[in-house]
């Protein structure tokens, strides 16, 4: 009894988005993503973002949930932005910075790197912010200080094209994150799985056994919480035998990890074996035609969303073609 483990990030509320047919949601999200790549116009992108915010507000899901998914990607976002600024040089030149690369500067950089590697685990809060400040201070130093054995002077030029492209790409990634979070927050894993089974039915033509794949998915969804509980018990059983996962030599640590993995496999295997018997006894034959207790039925609003999707993709193509010529 270890609290309740919830798999996936589903947030329970009763908005119109929650009530949409999962097939519609899945299709619309895919379409939306395609549109994001088709359109290379920052104003359209801002339009998309605005539209997304309306969706998020009407989904009745707290905005913090969305921020969490963006937070995980902060580093990637910043890196992309900086790389774009440094390497793109179209448009007009906005700023040009000269940096003095000195032996002293290299020394400082190496020292900071070592310090970071040694002490970063002790920084509890705002770790990323500290890192950014450190990196920034290295460049500020090189900008102002030119003694200490000058090797070369290099410059970073910021062009309007780079700035535009950088923010464009960052916004696009944010939009992708938001729309996929909206899907997973408003749809249970089971619903998604059912939608996938229905939508991927056409793959049968290529001899891909969709029903088996989705059955595997749904069993995974069913058993992941159980196996998490089991792993907690294994951890405790080995801790009772003096297994301490925070100390010991490398070889001992390997042994300790094995002492967790082996029981995990044994238990998972035993469960799988029992489950296979139970499924077979209840008449499961892989890939035979089965009915489904989940009836997915389109309603008016689902058709409306589909119609909207079509309009959206048409508009995107139109914009794309107009601006290409």
């Amino acid at each position, binding site marked *: 009894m270890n609290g309740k483990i919830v798999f996936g990030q589903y947030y329970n509320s009763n908005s119109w988005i929650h009530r949409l047919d999962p097939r519609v949601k899945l299709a619309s999200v895919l379409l939306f993503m395609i549109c994001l790549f088709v359109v290379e116009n920052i104003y359209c992108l801002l339009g998309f973002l605005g539209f997304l915010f309306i969706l998020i507000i009407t989904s009745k899901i707290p905005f913090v949930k969305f921020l969490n998914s963006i937070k995980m990607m902060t580093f990637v976002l910043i890196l992309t932005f900086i790389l774009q600024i440094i390497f793109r040089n179209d448009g007009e030149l906005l700023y040009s910075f000269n940096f003095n690369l000195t032996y002293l500067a290299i020394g400082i950089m190496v020292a900071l790197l070592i310090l970071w590697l040694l002490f970063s685990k002790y920084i509890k809060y705002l770790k990323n912010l500290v890192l950014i400040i450190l990196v920034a201070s290295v460049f500020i130093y090189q900008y102002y200080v030119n003694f200490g054995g000058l090797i070369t002077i290099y410059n970073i030029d910021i062009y309007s094209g780079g700035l535009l492209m950088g923010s464009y790409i960052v916004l696009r990634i944010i939009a992708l994150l938001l729309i996929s979070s909206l899907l997973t927050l408003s749809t249970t894993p089971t619903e998604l799985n059912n939608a996938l089974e229905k939508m991927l039915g056409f793959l049968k033509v290529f001899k891909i056994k969709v029903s088996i794949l989705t059955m595997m998915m*749904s069993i995974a969804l*069913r058993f992941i919480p159980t196996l998490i509980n089991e792993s907690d018990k294994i951890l405790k059983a080995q801790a009772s035998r003096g297994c301490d996962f925070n100390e010991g030599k490398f070889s001992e640590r390997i042994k300790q990890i094995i002492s967790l993995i082996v029981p995990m496999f044994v238990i998972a295997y035993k469960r799988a074996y029992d489950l296979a018997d139970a499924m077979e006894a*209840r008449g499961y034959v892989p890939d035979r035609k089965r009915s489904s207790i989940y009836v997915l039925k389109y309603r008016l609003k689902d058709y409306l969303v589909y119609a909207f999707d079509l309009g959206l993709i048409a508009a995107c193509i139109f914009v794309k073609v107009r601006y290409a010529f």
Partner: protein
Amino acid sequence: MAIIEVNNLTYRYTKKKYALKDVSFKIERGEFVSIVGHNGSGKSTLGKLLCGLLQTKHGEILIDGIKLSDDTIDEVRQKIGIVFQNPDNQFVGVTVKNDIAFGLENRNIDVDEMEKRIKKYATIVGMDEFLDKNPENLSGGQKQRVAIASVLAMETDILIFDEATSMIDPLGVKEVTNAIKSLKEEKTIIYITHNLDETLMGDRMIVLKNGEIVLDEKIDNAIKQKDILTNSNLEPLEQMELIELVNKNNLNRKEEVEKVLWQSAYQK
């Protein structure tokens, strides 16, 4: 015609060790037969053979007149359902409703019929208020009741319970055995266990020891065979031990005492 007929059934997992050795018996329609034995006596193997989860060339099994084989297995499974020991490992669905539906989906039954049966059998085992719950939120006894509903929903004539109460707490055991008792009228039941007090629910008892049948009798007679039961590594009921002591020592009012002891054995 017997609904189950087993003739000279032999099964072994490895070359040397026999799980079942030349086992034969018949079960009539509507009977409630307990199969008891120690761990490794072959009782669970027998259960799996009966519903075709294991197969052997040595000996034959006839279910409702159909000889069990690869070709008939689908047909046989429409007549026989099994509830296993571990409540967690047979819960296939993500919710109670989903789990009861699983077997019906396999039979390609249409949605309206499914909904009807789910409601009906969940009510029979008293789980109708839990249809949308997932297994993490259920007790062992509740999960086993769902397992029973799942099997009942397939409307088979024969039900096998393979140590269905051995991993749940006493309250759960009571819930489950009560559910099973209520099915006695309509179904042919095979109840596999190592607890002799649970065999009193049934009409007849088959005792297995190291893969062989050592006792097959009406329950009243079987439960008294203290020596055979002890020799088979089972624990005779205290009531029967007392009856034996009372009779051996020729106590005052021994008939009355014996009557009360029999009643007390059946009470549970």
